[in-house]
């Protein structure tokens, strides 16, 4: 286990070094298309290493080693601030730890890079709903669905918002139906929600 961590730290260290060293070359690559392809190869390698390090941090996160995952994502985002993945996962980790303001900050940074990131928008929607700011929550869910009409968490959360908090089961019903049509394994209580919503229209 200790060896694993050391090895991971070594890979990450190398990766971050390569990320620093190769940054300008990556920027220059499109202008040198006729030149020998060494740069592209090295860039490809650094991208592969970054992907690998990111994947390892995700595994740590999913295995519950959240402190280490958080440390790595923070390092990655410092070295590669244009990548949304580490930022989103930092937001998710903060959200899961109940650090709402911190989570909001990370997700808003994601939106600067990608205003239609459905995961960030969905989390911001949930946080707005928890705070009782239902209109902002609705707006965030709608933005998430605008970016990806089949993003199921935002679809279901919007249905819940309309059904439970805004008292509009008639508007929630088509969303439940849409979720039913899209979800590979819909929530087993879905039929009851649909039945109940229909009865209240």
């Amino acid at each position, binding site marked *: 286990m200790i060896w694993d961590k050391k090895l991971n730290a070594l890979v990450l260290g190398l990766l971050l070094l390569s990320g620093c060293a190769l940054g300008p070359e990556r920027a220059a690559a499109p202008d040198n298309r006729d030149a020998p392809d060494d740069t592209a190869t090295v860039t490809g390698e650094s991208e592969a290493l970054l992907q690998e390090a990111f994947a390892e941090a995700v595994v740590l996160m999913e295995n519950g080693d959240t402190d280490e995952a958080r440390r790595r994502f923070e390092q990655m985002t410092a070295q590669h601030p244009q990548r949304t993945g580490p930022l989103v996962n930092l937001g998710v980790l903060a959200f899961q730890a109940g650090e709402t303001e911190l989570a909001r900050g990370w997700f808003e940074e994601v939106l600067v890079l990608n205003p239609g990131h459905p995961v960030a928008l969905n989390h911001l929607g949930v946080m707005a709903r928890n705070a009782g700011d239902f209109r902002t929550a609705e707006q965030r869910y709608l933005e998430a669905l605008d970016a990806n009409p089949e993003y199921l968490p935002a679809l279901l959360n919007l249905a819940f918002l309309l059904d439970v908090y805004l008292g509009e089961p008639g508007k929630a019903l088509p969303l439940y139906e849409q979720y039913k049509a899209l979800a590979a394994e819909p929530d087993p209580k879905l*039929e009851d929600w649909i039945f109940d919503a229909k009865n209240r229209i």
Partner: protein
Amino acid sequence: MPAKLAFAYRETGQWEKAGDELNLMVAMATTPEERRENLQIAAELYDQAGNEDKAIDTWRQYANGHPEPAADYMEAANRLAELYESRGDFERRDFWLNRQMEKVDRNPEAADDRMRYLAASATFAREALAYYDSIRLTLPLNESMVAKSNALEDAVQAYPFEDSAIDIHEQNIHRAREGIFDEWVQRSYESLRRSLPGRYNKPEVTAGAVHDLG
């Protein structure tokens, strides 16, 4: 002979005697399906006769022996819950409410609207009683509700009360739509999540880690 007698008693509105004849026919039935149908008819006749003891006994035999067809089973379990309810036997009532919920939970795809309705009603009634038991712990919500809840506790028995308690909380959460989301509104949501989970306990869904580096 019992069939003819049963017919005659039914025609003349002598429900209990008709039920007794049907019970005899249960014993004489030559196929399981015939036995099941006779038992069901006998139970219905005792219901019509207003003989609760015999109705309970026959419905119980029916429900314990015939889990299928599910729709008929649900009606039998529902009737048993009603009969025990009217006697104030809440332990047995809850048993049959639970059986209804379990039946639909085990095979939700097989449930039709009526079965879902019965299961939802059973859930409601069961949780309403649990909520009533806890009402002294969860209240007072605020001053105005203290008065209402005290009146509620004084005035009501068993489970018709629950409509009133739920009404109070549902009125309170309407304030959220007007932009009010204070502690009392949030407490009302908490209460409703417990007392009507099928409608109110819908926790938001969020993704875990993203795997896309972006």
